[in-house]
């Protein structure tokens, strides 16, 4: 049994990260009013996006691991406490589709589960430097994008989450065979702290590029940014 205090200490890293963004000074403290350093760093970050896109290969797979390598217990991480993870009713949940997609009919969880599923045991690397190994399974995003007749020549795929988080990835990464809309984690349906009912699992990118509790997905040519990117993290976030 862990007391609320212990649990708090356990999760404090994510909170510290969130709180740190409120510090003053240059270095992305107020991106509504960027100073010269912010503008310089943003320019360099966009350049690094392009370098990472050039380094990325759709054929290069992230390493996979045996079941014995899975990290137990799994590590929760978010910018809020574990009991604040969004509770989504799987019965009424729908995946809304927006943007350059021909078939925009929303998807139910049952419909997604009826599609062919892929399983992977891959490494999840956080931008902070730690990593865990987990097992996820779900619908390969590339197959799903083709099924809904999305414009796979578009530049970005964006995700909106039940907790207000949002993220976006480049189309080549979205079409990578290991990029999946995960429904299961460690052989069980996703739980709220780990992104129920559907999360993105993309082992070729850092942890913050794996949005949880997705409620809407879009395909667009307009840069959709992301929750952390808006605060100064690099957008491509490749691994």
């Amino acid at each position, binding site marked *: 049994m862990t007391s609320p205090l212990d649990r708090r200490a356990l999760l404090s*890293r994510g909170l510290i*990260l969130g709180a*740190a*963004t409120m*510090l003053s*000074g*240059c*270095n*992305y*403290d107020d991106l509504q009013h960027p100073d010269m350093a912010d503008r*310089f*760093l*943003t320019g*360099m*970050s966009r*350049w*690094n996006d392009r370098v*990472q896109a050039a*380094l*990325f*290969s759709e054929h*290069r*797979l*992230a*390493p996979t691991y045996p079941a014995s390598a899975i990290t137990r217990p799994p590590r929760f991480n978010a910018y809020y406490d574990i009991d604040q993870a969004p509770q989504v009713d799987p019965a009424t949940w729908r995946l809304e589709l927006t943007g350059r997609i021909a078939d925009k009919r929303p998807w139910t969880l049952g419909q997604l589960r009826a599609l062919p599923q892929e399983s992977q045991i891959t*490494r999840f*690397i*956080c*931008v*902070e*430097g*730690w*990593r865990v190994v987990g097992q996820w399974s779900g619908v390969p995003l590339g197959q799903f994008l083709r099924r809904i007749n999305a414009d796979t020549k578009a530049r970005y795929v964006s995700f909106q989450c039940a907790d207000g988080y949002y993220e976006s990835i480049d189309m080549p990464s979205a079409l990578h065979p290991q990029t999946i809309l995960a429904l299961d984690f460690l052989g069980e349906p996703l739980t709220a702290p780990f992104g129920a009912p559907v999360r993105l699992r993309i*082992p*070729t990118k850092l942890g913050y590029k794996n949005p949880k509790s997705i409620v809407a997905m879009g395909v667009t040519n307009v840069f959709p940014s992301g929750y*952390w990117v808006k*605060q*100064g*993290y*690099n957008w491509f976030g*490749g*691994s």
Partner: protein
Amino acid sequence: MRRHRPIHPLPLRIMHWLNVIAIVTLIGSGWEIYNASPILPFSFPQWAVIGEWLGGAIAWHFAAIWLLMLNGLAYLIWGTASGHFRRKLLPITPRAVFDDLLAALSLRLQHEEGVYNAVQRLLYWGVISLGILAVLSGLAVWKPVQLWYLSDLFGGFGFSRIVHFAAMSGICAFLLIHVLLVALVPRVLPAMIFGGRVPETTHAE
């Protein structure tokens, strides 16, 4: 025939001070990145880090790395093409290093204007190697999937972080000695800014 030869030619001085900016930014921001998930039982104090928070530190780190890599590449090309490495950092023999080290530790080693003693030569080769090691291990930490061969070379993601940290520690040790020597022989500092002048006696060489 030139009228006088500077101790440190202009390209070297420019690259030296650009390198100071790059190295200080990389180490300061690297310490902040380290603090987000320390691999040793300590963190760097907040006054010593650059970036204020992880996102800022990463942004500085990945901006300064371009300066370090381009400047470092320019230095290696210039050092080879101009004969700087051959004239100033070679030859280097274990015997000379041993003798000079002994002389230095007994405070008998004289500073000769425009000439690096054997210990200095060894230290410069060492820090150049550490710089290359830091860049390669850093690339391995940055892209363990796309640059998997580098990641494998350093024994995977976790070991790459350790190698990267060790390379940084080695560079810091060099900087400590480097700055300490400047403090002991302060007249070498103006030469790195204004170029200095090789004394006539060694000019004939």
